[in-house]
Structures are given as C-alpha cells and as structure tokens.
C-alpha cells in the first residue's frame, strides 16, 4: 500500500449533497438502488485502488514499457496482474448499460470511481479510459451486431479499446486525417495508413484490442465532413465469438515521454500486408459527428486527471510538510526548528491545493450529473438544457481542470523543496504525469476556442447567461451569512468582470481574431468564478445540513469557500483586460 487514501468524505459530500445523487439515481434507465449502495461501492473500490493499483504507480514510472522485436509491448511489472484483478472485480462495468453487462449506474458514479483510479495510477488508468471512449462510441452509433460482438467483452475489460485520431499531419486539425478505407464487396473495409500517439495501441494486458479508427473513403469530401469511423480489432472475431486471425495492424514504435511512462503511446501502422479489416460504424462521412457525441465524456475524463493528480500530490505534500523541519515559524519556541507546515507561505500553498482540488471535484462531478440528466431525464426540455449546460462546462472541466493539475502538482514539488526536484520522493512524477493532460483530447487552446466559438453562442447566448444568473442568485444567498459576506462580495466582483468579458466576446462574435485572442484568459475567468460559486454553494449546503454532516464539516466548507473566493478568485478578475485587449498587438508582435 502507498500513502494515497481516497478522499471518500469529500467525494460522498459532493455526490450526495452537492450533485443530488438520489435524484440522479431515480432517473429512468438506471439501476434501482439507493445511495448507500454507492457508498459501499466507493469504499470497496477505494480499498482496491489504494492497495492494488496505487503501489504500481512508481514501478510503472521507473520501468515504463518495452517494445519487443516482434512489435509486441511488455508493460511494467505487475500491470498484467493488476489489470486482471481490475477486470475480475468488474469496476469498468459500473456506469454502462445493463443490457450489455454494465452496472447501470449514473455516469457521475463512474466519474467518482475514475477519480480514485486515476489518483492511484494515471498511466494504468489510461487503458480503461480509452476503452470507455471506444465503448461509448460503439454504444451510441454501432449496429446491434457490432454492439453484441464487442460491448460485453469491452465492458468487462477483457478487451480494451483505443481511439485512433491523430496522424503526423492531423493533430488539432482532425479534418486532415489521411488514413484510407476501401470498401470491399462483402461490406467490410480495408484500412491503410499510419496513426501516431495511440494510447494503449498495443499491450499485453487484455486478450484483444478494439481500435476505433478515423479514416477516409476514396470519394470522401475534404475536411471533417469526409471522415468515417471504423472498428478495427487486433484479432478478428470468429462467428462463434472466439478470437480469429491477427488483423493487419502493428505497433511500429513507442514514444519516450515526459510522463505517464507506463502508458504505451504507439505508432500504429495499418495495412502493411494489404489492409486491415475494418467495420464501418454508422454511415460513411459521419465519423466526426459520432466523435462529438462522446467528446463531452472523454474530455471530462481528461479534466478529471487534473483533479486526480492534484489530490494525490496534495496528500503527499501535506505529509511531507508535517515531517520536514526547517526554520522557525512565527510563534514557535526559540531554538527549535518548526515543521514547514507552520510557515504561512507553505500553508498558503497547501490550502491553495486543497481548495482547488475541492473546486475541481465539484466542477467535474456536476458536469457529469448534467450528462446524466441530459441522457436520462424523462422531460425533453430538461434533457436539452442539461445537455447544453454540460456542453458549456466541458471545456472548463478539461481546460481549467488540467491547467490546475499542472499548477497544483507544481506546488507539491515546491513544498518538497530540493527533494521535490529529485525523483526519490515520487512527487516529481505527478508533475510530469500531469503535463500531458493539457495537451491530448484537444489541447487546452482548442478547449478555449470551443468555449468562445461554440459554447457561448448556444441558444443565442442564453445558456451562459443562465449560468451566470445562477451564480448571481447564489451570491445573494451567500451574502446573508455574516462569515461569508466577504466571499459573497468577491463572488459578485468576479461575476461582474466575467459578465463584462462575456458580453465583449458576444459583441465580437463576428470578429474571429478578437474572439480567438481572448479565448484562453476567458476560459480561466469563467472557470474560476464557477469554482467560487460551487465552493460557496457547498458552504451553504453544509450549513443547511449541519445536523447530519457535523459542525467540523461546516467549518471546513466555510473556510474553503472563503479562501478561494477571498484570496484566489480575485486574481482572475484582472484577466478581463487580456480578453478584451488589442488583438492586433498580439498578432503584430514576434
């Protein structure tokens, strides 16, 4: 066992009190259970991840993966066994459709499990994560036969999945994909081309790998409108469901990386021997649309990586700060060195980490709850609003979540001083691992562009307006509590700045240069004020339920809300200038 302990108290609070787990569980289509079952699931899952998966985190970092001469990949010691235990325990099945062997739980519960799994071992978690993305795509757009063939084994985890978008000349610009797919007389396709950076594109943990591949048919229109999506299994499936011959796809190399060393990042070559057999999902040329339906969930999952690493790094930093003695803190007896946690500056770093993690947990779980309502609410109007709100929150979860992941793991390194920079303590690994999350699944630059370009305009701006109005309404409630009055004032100030930035962007909707220039600072503004809102709301909820949650939880919630709103949030107000500033200055410099 390592020292990582899943923060079950806060997870429980967020699921039940902030995000209304009972209400979500009661939506049609989910398994009929009460929230106590979820509590049991979380505590057993936590024990499994802490004891079985977390200890491999460092092992994976040190050993990495090895590509063998035959193109196979050997994962780090212990990974095969831990993955088998993960499959046996069935954790991957929890948030999926019961019709295919899933647990029938809300996505939000899956997200909570994912937080713990990712904290335990981010590189390991990439395998289930990519599988989840592939399941999602097949579930929504595959034929009945495809679902029956692939989903049950992918949901158990016996087979893993991948997402093959990226090519050397098609990264952020997915529309530039060049991999080709030729229709055969029997209705299958022959796929040829090279995909790069494919996570878990080849490995030794699962019996089969189901690749989802974006490619073009010969007569496809250019750009994103000409992309189709194919299932290309590593081993073809016999009619009786058993594994057949090896498909024409191979791992030609594996990357050496800054972080997530245990997650194989592969160059996959399709069709070296004539073509890999692929099966079209849905219709030709609609692949991009299909990707979009799963994008919210995949991006949310990556946003969660920021939280997961921030949390693990926080726990480690807190422990270190209690043990390491250096200098004399204010008020400490003379001649004695103090634990560094007693130094106000170290406390500030720790508290910044703690409340930022709490904010991210609230943002990402709420985002998941919106996805659940969007997929399961009986009322169409409710569903559509929830879908739009989820769409608005997703770039915040992904962009801000992973930016914070880098900043918070950076603070953990800082708290360790020199020991943070040497590899021995393991804290540097979290920082290195966190770095990828701002890049893949759409870089954070692309997230910001998505926010200002697509999401602000949803329903003519009505979606973001409702969100900001909800924050204003919360601020008036928060103001009534004397101990939170300063926090409420700060929330109103930040809201004002964010409204100004929002209105400016809306007014420049037809001026792409201005919109795109302000995108990233705007994403941070909107995320930060949303985080302040969620923490303030949490304080009110705790107070309202003081009898059940206890006074110490109320005090903790109030302190978090105050620190974030009074001391962290105001820094982002100043970004309004960056949003509305002179875009020409930006473009003409350098």
């Amino acid at each position, binding site marked *: 066992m390592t020292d990582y302990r899943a923060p079950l108290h806060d997870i429980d609070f967020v699921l039940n009190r902030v995000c209304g787990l009972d209400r979500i569980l009661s939506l049609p289509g989910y398994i009929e259970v009460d929230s106590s079952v979820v509590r049991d699931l979380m505590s*057993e899952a936590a024990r*499994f991840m802490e*004891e*079985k998966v977390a200890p491999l985190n460092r092992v994976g970092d040190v050993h990495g993966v090895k590509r063998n001469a035959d193109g196979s990949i050997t994962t780090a010691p212990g990974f095969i066994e831990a993955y088998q235990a993960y499959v046996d325990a069935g954790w991957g099945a929890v948030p999926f459709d019961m019709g295919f062997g899933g647990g029938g739980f809300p996505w939000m519960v899956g997200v909570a499990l994912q937080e713990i799994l990712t904290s335990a071992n981010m590189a390991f978690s990439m395998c289930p994560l990519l599988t989840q993305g592939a399941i999602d795509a097949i579930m929504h757009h595959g034929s009945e036969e495809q679902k029956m063939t692939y989903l049950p084994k992918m949901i158990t985890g016996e087979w893993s999945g991948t997402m093959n978008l990226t090519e050397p000349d098609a990264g952020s610009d997915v529309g530039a994909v060049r991999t080709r797919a030729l229709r055969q007389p029997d209705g299958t396709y022959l796929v040829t081309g090279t995909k790069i950076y494919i996570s878990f594109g080849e490995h030794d943990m699962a019996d089969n790998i189901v690749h989802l591949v974006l490619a073009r048919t010969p007569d496809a229109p250019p750009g994103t409108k000409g992309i189709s999506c194919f299932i290309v299994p590593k081993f073809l499936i016999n009619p009786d469901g058993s594994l057949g011959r090896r498909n024409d796809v191979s791992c030609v190399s594996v990357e050496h990386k800054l972080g997530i060393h245990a997650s194989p990042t592969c160059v996959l070559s399709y069709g070296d021997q004539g073509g890999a057999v692929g099966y079209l999902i849905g219709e030709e040329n609609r692949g991009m649309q299909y990707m979009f339906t799963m994008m919210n969930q995949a991006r949310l999952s990556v946003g969660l990586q920021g939280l997961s690493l921030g949390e693990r790094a926080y726990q480690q930093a807190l422990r270190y700060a209690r043990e390491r003695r250096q200098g004399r803190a204010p008020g400490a007896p003379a001649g004695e060195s103090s634990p560094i946690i007693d130094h106000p500056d170290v406390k500030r770093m720790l508290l910044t980490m703690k409340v930022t993690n709490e904010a991210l947990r609230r943002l990402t779980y709420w985002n998941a709850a919106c996805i659940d309502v969007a997929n399961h609410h009986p009322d169409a109007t409710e569903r559509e609003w929830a879908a739009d709100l989820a769409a608005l929150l997703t770039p915040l979860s992904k962009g801000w979540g992973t930016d914070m992941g880098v900043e918070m793991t950076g603070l953990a390194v800082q708290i360790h001083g020199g020991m943070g920079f040497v590899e021995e303590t393991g804290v540097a690994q979290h920082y290195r691992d966190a770095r990828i999350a701002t890049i893949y699944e759409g870089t954070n630059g692309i997230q910001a562009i998505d926010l200002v370009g697509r999401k602000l305009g949803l329903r003519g701006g009505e979606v973001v307006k409702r969100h900001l109005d909800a924050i204003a309404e919360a601020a008036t409630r928060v103001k009534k509590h004397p101990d939170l009055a300063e926090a409420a004032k700060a929330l109103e100030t930040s809201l004002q700045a964010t409204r100004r930035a929002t209105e400016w962007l809306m007014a420049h909707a037809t001026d792409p240069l201005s919109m795109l220039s302000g995108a990233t600072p705007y994403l941070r503004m909107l995320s930060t004020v949303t985080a302040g809102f969620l923490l303030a709301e949490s304080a009110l909820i705790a107070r309202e339920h003081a009898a059940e949650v206890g006074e110490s939880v109320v005090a903790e919630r109030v302190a978090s809300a105050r620190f974030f709103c009074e001391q962290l949030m105001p820094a982002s107000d100043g970004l309004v200038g960056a949003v509305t500033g002179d875009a020409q200055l930006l473009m003409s410099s350098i």
Partner: protein
Amino acid sequence: MKVIVCVKQIPDPATPGALDPSSNTLKRDGKLILDESDAYGVEMALQLVDAAGGGEVNLVSMAPNSETAGLRTALAMGAAKAVLVSDPALQGSDALTTAKVLAAAVQRLGGADLVIAATESSDGYTGTVPEQMAEVLGLPSVTFAKKVAIDGGVLKADRQTEAGYDEVTCSLPALISVTAGVVEPRYPSFKGIMAAKSKPVDEVKASDLGVTPVGWAGAGQTISNVAQAEARAAGEIIEDDGESFGKIVAFLEGLKVI
C-alpha cells in the same frame, strides 16, 4: 460443507484509535470495518467450500450500534449470510463473554462442519476468543494454522510453531484459528458488493441467544490499569565498511531469526 467464520468489525486502523477514559476500553463509535485478520478466514472458508464442491459460508459477529459495514465486505467476498449480535448490554464484555456470545451465534446458525477465527484480532489481540469458543461449543481446537485443507472429512493443518510447523490432523466438526497470510484474500467484486446488499443479516440481542450475564456484569476480567506504550527506540544505522554484513548477521542471530 458449511463453514462459519468469526468476523470482527473494528475501527479503521488508518484513523488513530482512542481509549474511553472512563472504562479504559477502545472507543468504537465511528464506522467499523472488517478486521483484516478475519479477511483471511473468510477467504479460507470460501476456498474450502469451493474445494468441497459446494456448501455455504456463514458469518458471526459481535459489534456495537448494529454495525454491518465489515460484514457487508465479507458477504461481498462471497459469504451467504450472517448473524450479528449487537446489544448495548454487551458493553464491557471480556473475551470469555465474547466467546460465549459468538458460540451461541454459531449454534443459532445450526452449527457447522468447521468454525474459523483469526489467531488474534488487530485491535484487541487478546488471542483467546477462538480457544474459548471451542471449549464452549465442545469442539476440538486447532490453532495458528498457516495452511488448511480438508481431505476425506479430515481437517489437515500446518500449525505454526516457534521452531517450524506441526502437521496436525483433526476430525470434523472443529474450530480452527488461522494466521495472517494463510491465503490471499480476494477483493470484493462489483457484482459481489451488489449481491451482498440483499444477503440476510440476522441481528439479535444477547438475550435472544440466552447468554447471561454479559457486559461488565459478566466479565471475569477487569482492566486495572493502562499505561502509555514505550516510545519506539531509534534504529541502529550500520555504515557499510565492507565488513558490515557480520554485524547484520550478529543482529539477526540476536533476534533468533537465523
């Protein structure tokens, strides 16, 4: 085959425990979890029933406040049902009373081919409850088992001793205490946890079992004093000068481990 496992539910060892200053006994007001020592017994029982080609694993537990969290873990691992004895009157029970209560719970379940307990619990570690239960139940008692099998209706165990181990055979029914590490306990699966929710837990009071007197009144032992444990002394650091292996060998010999 039917195996009954004693399952103690204890405060989470990760959160520091505290003594109730009025009684000098452990405070047990927070959430309790399955004692890891008993996870081995549960796993052992599941494997023995599996090897026998069928049967059932049942659980008995005595715990305050109707606590079932630890039982649910054991049920999620695969046990079929449980008897929980939870009763404010049990407050102040010593090890013998505990043994009497658990023995009565075993009888309530109709007895078993084999009763399994851990050699000692992680929080109390008196290490006498299993033997006392065997006496109360009139069963042969096999202790400190590090390996257990059942072959043709006979219990075969390797019993840990200071010098090595004894090979013990014993007729059934019997009661056996197993050491940590006897088998590798499984983690409850998602499906197991879901199934455990609907498995029966029969909650009873001491009086339902006909055990009296219990609690402080029934205790033959008293707690006369508690003292702070001695602080752990700092370890000795041996600088390697090329010959330090000699010192390490001498140290290990001093501990009588080699």
